[in-house]
């Protein structure tokens, strides 16, 4: 009600410190302030332990080392992944190249067979005779001679074993050769 009769937007007095009141028999009385109890649950550490627990200041070199290690790990992981990807791609390429090779080999065989089928001996012979005016080798192209008994050659075999001197001479020749 009091608020309605006021022109302020906010009743700031509500946030002001007020004494506690207790309603007793329809009358409001101020509540006596309670004795503030101090809870003693704080453990004080020895000074050495405090020093020990004190957070150490990060050394710059250590920071670099950590960063380097992390970087190295990232690089390793990255390169493993990259290699796997590369490996996959290469495998795919190899498989594709092998397929192409096999196909080209088949095409080669197919073309070779087609070429061969156009070159049977009958066809070659016909072409040579009709187009190139060639003839088979005939007996008339050979000149025959008559050999008498005396015209025959004889291969003379070695007459016998070499003498000792001949052997020495052959040995020396062999060394010099």
């Amino acid at each position, binding site marked *: 009600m009091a608020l309605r009769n006021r022109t302020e937007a906010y009743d700031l007095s509500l946030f002001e410190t007020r004494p506690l009141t207790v309603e007793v028999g329809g009358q409001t009385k101020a509540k006596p302030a309670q004795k503030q109890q101090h809870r003693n649950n704080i453990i004080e550490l020895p000074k050495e332990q405090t020093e020990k627990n004190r957070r150490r200041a990060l050394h710059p070199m250590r920071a670099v080392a950590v960063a380097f290690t992390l970087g190295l790990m990232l690089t390793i992981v990255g390169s493993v992944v990259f290699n796997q990807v590369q490996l996959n791609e290469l495998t795919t390429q190899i498989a594709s190249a092998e397929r192409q090779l096999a196909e080209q080999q088949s095409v080669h*065989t197919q073309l070779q067979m087609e070429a061969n089928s156009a070159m049977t001996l009958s066809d070659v012979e016909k072409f040579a005779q009709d187009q190139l005016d060639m003839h088979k080798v005939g007996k008339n192209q050979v000149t025959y001679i008559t050999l008498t008994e005396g015209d025959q050659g004889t291969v003379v075999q070695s007459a016998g074993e070499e003498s000792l001197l001949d052997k020495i001479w052959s040995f020396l020749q062999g060394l010099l050769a």
Partner: protein
Amino acid sequence: MAKETTIRMWRRALILILMMAAGLCLVVFNLIRLQLVDGEELKKAAIDQSLQPTALTAERGTIYDCSGTKILAQSASVWTVALEPAYIEEEDKKVLARGLAEILDMEEADVLALAQKKTYFTYVKKKVETAVKDEILEFLEENNISRGVQLIEDYKRYYPYGNFMGPVLGFTGADNQGLSGLEYQYDTELSGTAGRLVTAKNAVGTDMPFQYEQRVEAEDGYDLVLTIDEGIQHFLEEALEEGIENFEVANGACAVAMNVKTGAILGLATKGDYDPNDPWTITDADVIKEIEALPEDEQDAATSAALQKQWRNKAVSDTYYPGSVFKMCTGSMAMEEGIVSEETTFTCNHSYVVEGTGGQHINCWAYGHGTETFVEGLCNSCNPFFVHLGESLGPNLFYKYFEAFGFTQKTGIDLPGEANTIYYTADQLNPMELATESFGQNFSITPIHMLAAACSIANGGYLVQPHVVDHMVDEDGNIVMTADTSYKRQVISSDTSERMIKILQTNATIGTAKNGYIAGYRVCGKTGTSQKILEDQLDTSKKHYIASYCGFAPADDPEVALLVYYDEPNPNINYYGSAVAGPTFVKCMEQILPYLGIERKYTEEELEKIDTTAPSVTGEKVEDAKKTVEDAGLTVKVKGDGDTVLEQIPAFGEAVPQEGTIVLYTDEESQKETVTVPDLTGMSLSAANQTAVDSGIQIRVTGAALTSNNPVSQTQDIAEGTEVRPGTVVTVAFIEVDQVA
């Protein structure tokens, strides 16, 4: 109040515990079941699901001729075109049908019918080549057709030379398996072993090669290197075709050339044959007409029978009575046993009464040869003489040698379908059977049997193992198998062999086999004519004969044996082995021997008869040319009024008969002159010569003309009616027509 609540809680807890226990039991039970009971099966199923194996196809081996470089059969991957009609858009079907029909050389309506089928998959054309496949892909891309056409990788066997050597090579089936010939015989070796690639697959079926991969490489089939020489095979096939045409041979023919020392088949030609690229098509037009004339329900059986007949290799699958060719074996037996020598005489009175038959007799083909020596008896192919030799040997000795020559077993040649021989054992050889077998009748063998026996007579008496494959090579080029060329056994002594060679050479020079004579080549030979008794009984409209010629050369060191066999030549033309098979034998041997580097060695007598060579006189003054030609022992004919020789016929280096003519053309007008080649066949030597002279040409003679007393021209190398220049030399082959057996 609190007490009641606690009991309820306990009850609930108990139920919960029981349920949990039951659940745990169920889990444990399932664990045991899955791990111990069904463990192996499930493990396998899991592997099957995640590790999908892919078969690695082994490439079928290649077949080469004896050079190891000439490819006779080879495989390559090709494509099969299939449609998935259910996935083809309705509006694409016509476009697709038109395009595929054009590319695949098919009827558009047929392809459209396939595309409109209510099915998920249908074949359009099998085994199309890569170029065609590329065309299809291009067409599909151009027309934005992404679904409905499947190109499936397949294999095709190529035989680049078509019919060439067809029955020997055989062919393969739809699954690349050998079905005939060498393809069948060596199917295991040619096929190789398929490999396997096992890789892990992810959920969508993509390979995970680094998770798990196990590759067992395919082992390609071995390559076969044959003993057959492409050149020799060509000579045989060409000559056989000519013989079939000349003598209207009804039932095919074969010619087999064999290395007498190793048994290696150098050439094996069989006609009628087929193209292994298209073995299911009947090649004989007459047979097709006969089948078409049959009622429809009989056509399938007739087609099947015709194909089986077409695929037969006559050289190994057909048996025949060898006829008088076998006399070389009977003679060898008798000579080996000392029953007969070259000078042993016998008197042939045309009819010979066989001992122990109650007067049954066997007639000679001639009206009695009178008293003749063994050499003359063989040269006359005298049946009574050989019946007499058979009687002298007796059934036991005869059978002993018959068996030793290999006639009682298959030769074991590495070709499929070798026929069993039909013969009488020693116990079954009663006098008449012995008598008829003595001159090559009444028992059946294959041409390969006869040729192997002839080789044993030629090579010192050793029975060789006929074979077609020389060696096998693996994919790395290592030789994995080599043919065994060791002899089976020695049938006759080398002395008997040498003596029989001389007798057979005499036979081929002046005897009944003189149609196989080749000047300078010391040929040995024996002819054979056998009657097909069964066919005669089934078809009485004509007589059925087999004409054959078997021989080898050169006599001083035999290298090659050749058997030529014609099945049912037209008896109205000729059916004697000498006349029908002899010229083919000559034609083949004349090409084979120089091809193998075997040179002619003429006797003085032969040297006098051989052709000479035209000297070079073109460009010379006419008078000088005349002198040059006359000095060469030839005559001159000058055409035109010029004073310089512009051209000569025959040209320099060409063959001219002894005392032949050289025509000299001296102006352009004379060079335009031509004459027509007359028919020079069916004439005596003098008549043919006179006809040639009258027509302004000249002839050179081959065959029996040089040794026969009564030769008749049989073929000419330039056809009748051909326009040629005056002086042209036509080669005319002569035979001795009154030779039989």
